[in-house]
């Protein structure tokens, strides 16, 4: 009995000493600088659908991948957001605007990772591979990852570009079918990334071509290390990045869909930078945190499925437009931090026309118009509210509820559909399941064509992602005419006429242009936000 008792005691003591020594041992190593000073953690709002922005259009994927993993031939820089050199150090456009030659840099290295080691630097083959994948339906890699290139489809890239040819090891020439003043702008967007042709060949040999979009190789400032879906992405700095030395060792995306979760992590210093914070007061109160804002080129809208009655009747659409109380929505959904949208273009763009009549909130006008349309007793409809947050619509469900109660006042009953995963949602919208849908658009580059073509052109309608299925020949001809000239005044006139058509036909009701916010620790420096396009961590620094 006594022996047993003693051993129990000694066991207890041993355990206690072991535990205490374990805890205190950590305190002895103070010399090694903490790993966290060399890493930046960004709390993002969702998981990327793929690691190649060519294949997607969602902001989450673009933010995570485009500027981090890849470069483009040309990019935007400077206060006026002009097109400037990136992988192409210079370019030449022929007078008729149909041939564009790019001269590539010779010192660009691809990523060295555990799954691929490049044997050569970037050359013309990579550029040709990256674009031919999109252009050529027969291309080996065209159908990998679904064969959809939504951005390129919406700008009709395939019908614009006649071919691409290799002039020499570092020179590439694009031949276009027609002159297009937005071609360069589109080549500088987040979607026109340059992939590694050598890597593609390597994967072909292993017969695992899908890895090109899942285990990416690019030339960008960061390279892929690890990804756990729904949890985190780990990037390491690209040691041989051609443009500059990266200030940090690791960039980590901590995927936290919950608003409160993200802000909590910022306040508890578990994240250095945070996406879409909503409680701005909390951040402003803290001296060690700062709130950045930028006015975005974006628009949140209620799109009508113009192929389904009664929404093929423009008077019905107009009536609903008068019935929506946009002020209340701005207050409740954007917490006041947005401006009312009277057209698809924000008032800060040169294409905006203040003379176009606005659809002010008026219940009487709404009822009258609805009567005119032939529905004095209203009807039942559905609204599909997007299930994820975006800068242009942070809470589509509540917005749908507010619109529902607005429309109740003119006799329309609304059912709201909301509970879908994002890619399922987009697919169902593309199939035309809805009567009306709350979506939006954030510009990829400062040229207004980005709005006009991507939202309401006929090719966007066939693509289906915008939800309106609206195709107006007159509108299409106006916007393509605008692309054929670089004369600003002429373009303004074309766009003004296009805006007038939108106002009359009301394929969608523009609701708000929002600001994009970001929260960060004071010790993080570097410009991360841009008014268009995705995040760029290239210049981030932690002090």
């Amino acid at each position: 009995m006594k022996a047993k008792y003693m051993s129990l005691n000694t066991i207890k003591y041993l355990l206690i000493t072991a535990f205490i020594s374990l805890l205190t041992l950590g305190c002895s190593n103070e010399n090694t600088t903490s790993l966290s000073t060399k890493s930046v953690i960004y709390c993002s709002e969702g998981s990327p659908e793929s690691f190649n922005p060519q294949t997607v259009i969602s902001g989450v994927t673009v933010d995570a991948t485009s500027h981090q993993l890849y470069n483009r031939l040309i990019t935007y820089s400077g206060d006026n957001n002009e097109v400037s050199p990136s992988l192409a150090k210079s370019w030449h456009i022929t007078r008729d605007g149909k041939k564009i030659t790019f001269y590539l840099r010779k010192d660009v290295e691809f990523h060295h990772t555990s799954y691929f080691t490049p044997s050569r630097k970037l050359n013309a083959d990579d550029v040709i591979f990256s674009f031919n994948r999109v252009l050529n339906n027969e291309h080996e890699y065209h159908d990998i990852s679904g064969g959809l290139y939504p951005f390129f489809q919406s700008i009709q890239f395939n019908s614009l570009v006649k071919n691409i040819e290799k002039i020499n090891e570092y020179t590439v020439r694009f031949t276009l079918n027609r002159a297009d003043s937005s071609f360069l702008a589109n080549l500088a967007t987040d979607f026109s990334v340059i992939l590694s042709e050598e890597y593609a060949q390597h994967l072909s040999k292993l017969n695992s071509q899908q890895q090109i979009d899942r285990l990416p190789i690019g030339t960008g400032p960061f390279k892929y290390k690890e990804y756990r879906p729904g949890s985190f992405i780990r990037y390491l700095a690209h040691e041989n990045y051609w443009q500059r030395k990266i200030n940090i060792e690791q960039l980590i995306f901590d995927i936290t869909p919950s608003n409160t979760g993200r802000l909590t992590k910022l306040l508890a210093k578990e994240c250095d930078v945070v996406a879409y914070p909503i409680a701005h007061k909390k951040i402003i109160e803290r001296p060690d945190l700062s709130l950045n804002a930028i006015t975005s080129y974006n628009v949140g809208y209620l799109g009508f499925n113009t192929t389904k009655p009664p929404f093929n009747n423009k008077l019905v659409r107009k009536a609903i437009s008068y019935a929506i109380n946009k002020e209340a929505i701005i207050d409740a959904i954007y917490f006041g931090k947005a401006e009312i949208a009277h057209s698809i273009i924000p008032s800060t763009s040169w294409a905006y026309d203040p003379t176009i009549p606005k659809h002010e909130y008026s219940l009487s006008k709404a009822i009258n118009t609805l009567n005119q349309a032939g529905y004095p007793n209203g009807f039942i409809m559905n609204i599909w509210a997007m299930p994820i947050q975006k800068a242009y619509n942070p809470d589509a469900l509540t917005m749908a509820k507010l619109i529902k109660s607005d429309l109740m006042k003119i006799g329309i009953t609304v059912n709201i559909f909301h509970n879908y995963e994002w890619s399922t949602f987009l697919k169902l919208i593309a199939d035309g399941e809805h009567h009306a849908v709350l979506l939006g658009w954030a510009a990829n580059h400062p040229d207004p064509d980005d709005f006009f073509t991507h939202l309401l052109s006929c090719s966007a309608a066939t693509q289906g992602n915008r939800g309106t299925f609206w195709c107006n020949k007159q509108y299409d001809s106006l916007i393509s005419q605008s692309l054929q000239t670089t004369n600003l005044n002429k373009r303004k006139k074309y766009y003004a006429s296009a805006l007038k058509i939108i106002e009359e036909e009301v394929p969608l009701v523009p609701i708000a242009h929002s600001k994009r916010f970001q929260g960060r620790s004071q010790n993080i420096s570097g410009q991360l936000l841009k008014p268009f396009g995705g995040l760029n961590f290239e210049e981030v620094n932690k002090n």
Partner: protein
Amino acid sequence: MARENIYQEEEFPSPLKQLWYNFKEKPMIMLAFGAFIALIVLAVFAPIITPFSSSQSHLDSILLPPAWNNNGDVSFLLGTDKLGRDMLSMLMHGATFTFGLSFIIVIISAIIGVLIGSLSALTSGFKSSFLNHFLDVILSIPSLLLAIVIVAVLGTGLSNTVLAIIIVLIPQFIHVTRNEVKKEFTKDYVLASKLDGASSLRILRYSIFPNIIEKIITQSTLAQSAAILDIAALGFLGLGAPTYIPEWGAMLSNGIDLFYIAPWTVYFPGLAILFAVISTNLVGEGLRHALKQRKEH
């Protein structure tokens, strides 16, 4: 002036009255009992006495803080949520769901559990052993987990939650009843009844039952506090009441996303749950304590 004791007999209060006297002794317990009764009244009459309808959205008063805050409004005493619904009304109406439903759940599962338990106590041999094993397996699975499983099978929603928790609580009552009945069966007074020729059912109904009812009531209070927490937990996890029903757990989960802008939407439902559970537990404590005291005296 002292009351004249006309009759010389000593008055022995009935066991129930004794229980009540013992129960009354502690002021804290009486307070809890009062709160308990108040909650029951609230649960029944809430739809009538709330200042606003709990589902009515006041879209011009979204996310108002409670009235004592500068930006608050006295007509919305505890503030509003993100759809402009009055917090006070929702909290009061929530009593019907979180508290009231738990009460009904406990009554139903108690009745079923006691019935099955007492009948099974009469069996013996292989049937009894099998039931024992089976019960043990079920009892070793915690109530919330079992409820989650049942909800996973039946689907989410308030009625399925209620059904799930009823199913989950029944084994507890079976177990207690069985043990108690078996214990009572060994006692002398039951033996006496048996010798008198009473059938087992008769013994059960008239002799044993009145003696175990208090144990059952104690178990009921334990079950009720578990039921309240389970309903709220399932509502919080999104597996119970849908978001437009002002159940306290669902209200809490709705409020989390806007916690930093509107913390009252999180604090108040939590306090309500805490309040309900504490009252139930205190009442249970009081009962147990009074029972013990009565036994000892």
